């Protein structure tokens, strides 16, 4: 595990604690900036099949249950699963295809920067992380592979206090040279990050997409889907910005 999403999202009831571990991991691993001197040599980028979650997340980062040990954590986990199931059904009802939206936005941002883009299908053992190696990846005419993995959905800092649900996208991106696997760029982008984590690109959420509680979110499916759309666009735009 390179950047810890598996841990962050695996321990559902202890999300805040996992985020702290994740942030600590990010702070110790510096981003690798794109080497501008290579820019002229990279004309065609192969987008590897991204690491994707099973569905959207609906996270309440602080809950009352966290003050009540294991029983509280179990109750929280059940509530989170219920919220995620509702959110997934709601987005399905809107015919919202997160994976297709993400890929289309990514292609659009790279093409706007002058790159030719092709799809490179790959399989992954871990959907929440970068590929372990790129030796088996092959795509004729591709100069570099873009490896990404992301989570998306809605997050609220917590019910106690004023913190509405807002869309989030947390992603990792890595550009590797096709010829020798050298890392040309590696970074993490958090749209609507909690607690201003250091070392990762932090994109502020669009203020237009805020829902005071989860019931408000589910009562406006169209706006909820549009909020995720905006988050994907901003996050993939940031990937483009990192490789120019």
């Amino acid at each position, binding site marked *: 595990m390179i950047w810890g999403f598996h841990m962050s999202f695996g321990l559902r009831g202890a999300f805040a604690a996992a985020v702290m571990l994740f942030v600590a991991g990010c702070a110790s691993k510096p981003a690798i900036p794109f080497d501008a001197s290579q820019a002229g040599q990279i004309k065609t980028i192969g987008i590897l099949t991204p690491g994707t979650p099973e569905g959207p997340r609906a996270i309440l980062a602080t809950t009352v249950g966290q003050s009540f040990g294991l029983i509280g954590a179990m109750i929280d986990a059940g509530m989170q699963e219920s919220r995620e199931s509702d959110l997934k059904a709601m987005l399905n009802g809107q015919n919202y295809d997160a994976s297709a939206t993400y890929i289309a936005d990514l292609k659009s941002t790279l093409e706007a920067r002058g790159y030719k883009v092709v799809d490179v299908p790959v399989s992954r053992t871990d959907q929440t992380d970068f590929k372990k190696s790129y030796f088996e990846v092959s795509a004729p005419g591709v100069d570099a592979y873009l490896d990404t993995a992301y989570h998306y959905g809605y997050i609220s800092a917590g*019910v106690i206090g004023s913190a509405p649900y807002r869309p989030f996208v947390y992603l990792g991106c890595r550009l590797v040279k096709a010829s020798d696997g050298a890392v040309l760029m590696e970074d993490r982008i958090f749209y609507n990050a909690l607690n201003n984590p250091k070392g990762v690109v932090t994109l502020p959420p669009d203020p237009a997409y805020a829902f005071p509680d989860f019931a408000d979110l589910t009562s406006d499916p169209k706006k909820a889907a549009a909020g995720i759309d905006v988050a994907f666009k901003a996050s993939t735009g940031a990937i483009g910005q990192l490789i120019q």
Partner: protein
Amino acid sequence: MRERVRLSLMSLIVLGAALGGCAKREPVMPILALPQAKECAAKVNVSNPTPLAFDPEDAKAIDMNISEGASCYLHPDGSKSLYGVVALPEPGYAYILTVESYPQGSSIFSPRLLLLDANGKLTREYDRKHFMFRGGVLAGHLRVHPGERYLIVGTDAKSVGTDEQRITGMTHQNTSSGVTTSGVYYAMTLNTASESVQNLTYSYGGKVKIVSQAMPAKK
């Protein structure tokens, strides 16, 4: 006796007020325009750079304050730019350079970077669009190559005066503990949340940190 107590109380009040006055900080206002009389040279002057060290094991950093009194140059596009000069380390191989612009109140320095070789010739230029927020700071990362000798940290005048709003969700953990009258130890944690909204205006000047660090080792 009563008079003495009254005088002591008065002294305490005066002292308290004075300390309060000292503690109160003046808000930092963004520099939105430079004085007409500010002289700006056509070329940057690299004769008195601040040296930046390099250590392959540890990040090395220097702080820089770009103030209204800083040197100024006239960019080819006609805009005026305050600037500071850094003498870059020369380890003989590429390394990562990070330039961070720190918010001060509602003001944040709008950076533009120039990289020059030993002869002062421009090798690369990055405007504010190259910078992205990382945590609470506006940061730009780049790889420096052998032969790049000076970094000019100047103002990106085009974006001075523009605003940026940043909303951030925050979580807080409050733990209280003690011993009950029956001698039982207890500890309780309460998790709470809030949101912070930060409105920033890009400025001609501000606080900057420049960091050099080695490329991460290959896995």
